[in-house]
């Protein structure tokens, strides 16, 4: 039993139903979008394959939903507790923040901060090794990409 008291079976059913609904939304959108494309001179226009795929997607999504509603979803899910959800959410937020800051802040500072924060989330406790590892990794990437391979990673614009 997981944190919210639902059995793995129920959670898996919810997952399958969500997947089916997302698929249906995508398929519907594909149909909608392809309606505005030019009609072909002969069979084989731009819309034919996307529509065929969307049709298959509708069929499999409905089958998936039907299976789920009959309670036949696989019950293999490992339970998630609040700590895990928090950690995943933190990582996701951290990584998104890193992606945002990469270009304006520059590779060196944003990477260092990202690593220190990430190691903290991962449960590393030794401060010396957290900082040391972050510096080492940041410098290593800088050396490989900027200096050896001449692939410029985002520079520190605000310093120059």
């Amino acid at each position, binding site marked *: 039993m997981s944190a919210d008291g639902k059995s793995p079976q129920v959670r898996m059913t919810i997952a399958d139903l969500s997947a089916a609904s997302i698929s249906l939304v995508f398929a519907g959108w594909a149909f909608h979008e392809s309606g505005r494309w*030019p009609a072909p001179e002969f069979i084989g226009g731009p819309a034919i394959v996307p529509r065929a795929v969307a049709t298959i997607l509708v069929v499999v999504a409905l089958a998936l939903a039907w299976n789920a509603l009959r309670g036949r979803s696989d019950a293999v899910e490992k339970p998630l507790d609040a700590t895990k959800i928090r950690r995943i959410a933190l990582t996701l937020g951290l990584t998104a923040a890193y992606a945002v800051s990469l270009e304006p802040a*520059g*590779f*060196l500072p944003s990477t260092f901060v990202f690593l220190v924060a990430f190691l903290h989330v991962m449960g590393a406790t030794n401060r010396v090794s957290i900082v040391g590892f972050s510096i080492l990794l940041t410098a290593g990437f*800088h050396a490989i990409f*900027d*200096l050896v391979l*001449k*692939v*410029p*990673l*985002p*520079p*520190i*614009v605000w*310093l*120059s």
Partner: protein
Amino acid sequence: MKLTRRAFTAGLAAAGLASPAIAQTFQRDITMVVPWAAGGGTDTLARTLVKNAKQYLGVGINVVNRTGGTGAVGMQSVSAARPDGYTIGLITFHLSAYRLMGLSDLSYRDFEPIALLNRTPAAFSVKADSPFKTLKDLVDYAKANPGVVTVANSGAGANTHLSAAILAKNNGIKFSFVPFDGGAPARTAMVGGHVTSLVSGPDEVLQYVKTGQVRILAMVGEQRHPSFPDVPTIAEAGFPNKEIVYDWRGIGAPKGLPPAISKTLSEGFEKMAKDPDFIALMDQAALARVYMNGADFTKFLAGMETSLEPALAEVGLLKK
């Protein structure tokens, strides 16, 4: 990073590697964005061009491949860069078409054109054992059998596709276009006998012409191509046309470049375009070397959009 690189360049200068004779407009290496993948034809051209940049500008030029969005991502990043001369870009044919095809608002107006380096016409070719000996044979046959002649090209909306479409429109004939993902696979389909003819850059078929497997019927363009003196122009073949669509490659900088830097860059690239290594590569690959300075290049680009508009309308790709 910039600090590091400056230190690096200074170190090189101290070691006597940087040429002392040239007045230093640039303190550190220039970045040139190539909007196409590393190793491709455009990338090869770019890298050969800037190989000896240090001799001519006093600093090196690093090529960075920034791809995506059929070239628009890389070109966009150049047009949006700080106009200090440290970021320049290779710009290509697609820049003439984005706005007309409704793919992006980007056009040559967002750049300060520095130099045109290459202008490639389209060439019509057939397999050596094909019954068509001249372009007229092919057009006459297409006239008698509408839609039966299949023409391979390097992609929808490419200069090759548009050149053939203009030929068809002017002569009231109908080709079945078979677009490929680039010139090489299109050529392979023609050499394998899967399509009637090919319209491609002459450089794409050069090797096959030399080995006698392919015959070029005619080439779009005002004059004959220096690497193919025996091939007639499309007008000489009997089908004159006003709207010539060229594939082109050049150098552009962000708009608003200080005049002094613009001048240094222009002079530098003019010299690089005359570098023996660059000339050797271009001639070996039969890529027509056409040098134009910024002002002429701008005029060329304006004319290009005028030619492209009716051509794109003809193939149904014009977005208005």
